[in-house]
């Protein structure tokens, strides 16, 4: 029962700290978008997804603590890992706030008009739209379209033939009459609506043609990040 090699009782214990922290950050962002959207569209269904993600976040939190404690061998490890745990707990706090936000759904919609007003006027807004017949998005996956790269908008929920999908994966296919809920700037959402309505043909960005080109591009990015990081930190402190 207390076999130290037995990871099965703890979810995610076989994953790396890097994977766990990445997942926590991603989840904290998705859960915030969904929490606001659930209030805006008065969706109990979306609120349930938020609660599910919140539980998932708790599993991730315990897993990362476990892995971090195992990894700490020296004082220096402990020092650096304490910072890492604080960042992980920040993601957890955000998800707690999101799950508390959806609890506001128990108040009738007319008691929370301010929320909708705020969400329709914020820098990054939440909007919904329908994929119309004739849209060039139809039949393509979110990943193929690179929706966020092309419009700056992130699809946070999609209602297709089988009901709602929250935080849809890249391989989710867009179909005619799907409803999507997106988060993005006004311009971006206006552009996406033109694509969804079929009044504008999807504009694919340039992508590397083969693996070699992709590798070259990745190297260039890495090089530039290194140089500019130096520059930005140069006169820091």
């Amino acid at each position, binding site marked *: 029962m207390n076999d130290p090699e037995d990871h099965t009782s703890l979810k995610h214990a076989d994953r790396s700290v*890097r*994977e766990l*922290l*990445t997942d926590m*950050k*991603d989840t904290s*962002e998705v859960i*915030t978008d969904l929490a606001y959207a659930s209030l805006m569209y008065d969706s109990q269904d979306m609120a349930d997804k938020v609660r599910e993600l919140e539980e998932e976040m708790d599993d991730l939190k315990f897993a990362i603590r476990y892995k971090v404690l195992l990894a700490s061998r020296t004082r220096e490890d402990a*020092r*650096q*890992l304490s*910072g*890492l745990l*604080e*960042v992980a*707990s*920040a*993601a957890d*706090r*955000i998800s*707690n*706030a*999101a799950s*508390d*936000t959806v609890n*506001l759904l128990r*108040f009738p919609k007319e*008691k*929370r008009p*301010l*929320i909708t*007003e*705020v969400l329709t*006027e*914020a*820098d*990054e807004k939440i909007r919904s739209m329908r994929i119309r017949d004739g849209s060039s998005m139809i039949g393509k996956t979110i990943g193929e379209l*690179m929706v*966020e*790269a*092309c*419009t*700056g908008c992130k699809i946070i929920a999609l209602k297709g033939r089988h009901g709602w999908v929250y935080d849809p994966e890249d391989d989710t296919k867009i179909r005619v009459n799907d409803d999507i809920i997106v988060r*993005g*700037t006004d*311009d*971006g959402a206006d552009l996406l609506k033109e694509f969804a309505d079929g009044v504008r043909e999807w504009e694919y*960005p340039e992508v590397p043609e083969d693996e070699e080109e992709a590798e070259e591009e*990745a190297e260039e*990015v890495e090089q*530039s*990040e290194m140089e*500019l*990081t130096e*520059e*930005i*930190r140069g*006169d*820091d*402190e």
Partner: protein
Amino acid sequence: MKSKLVAMFLELKDTSETMLDLAYSSLLYDSAEIAEEVLALADKMRDLSDRIMDEIVQVGRASPDEVAKAVVTTRLMGNVLEISEAARSIADVVVRGLAEHPVLAMSIRDSDTTMCLAKIAGNSILADKSLGELTLSTNTGMFVIAIKRDDDYIFGPGPEDVLRVDDILIARGPEESVSNFKDLADGSEREL
């Protein structure tokens, strides 16, 4: 008409998001300067939330029917503040010099919303244009969260801010957008 309360609440929500973006960027680039700004914004958030509370009390006094709305607003405000406190605690890690673990930067780079830096070259088509006319988020997928100009920063720049040669932009967005965004800044890509 936009009420005073809505306007203040908007600022609260937008600031909490800016803080989180800045907090992660301070972590990624281990920059105490950016982290300090997050701490300053946290103070601003506290002032703002006090003013919102005062306004809620006023509204409640003037029209008791509105009290239920006020309660909902207060609860939501608490949650927005919690996001800004989470951002503050991330920035605090940087200020304390505890942001050195390489996994921190790796996780930010690996995540769905990544971050990058881009420097505006003399021949860049972005130079001398305002963020409002460029609509970079729509055109490139990257959202500019700060600009480093000489020794200063412009945090959470708005549509009226004009990009200048040698500015270093800090932006967030999907990984697929990073390469093109950098190319636009360094002048090797000439079309937005």
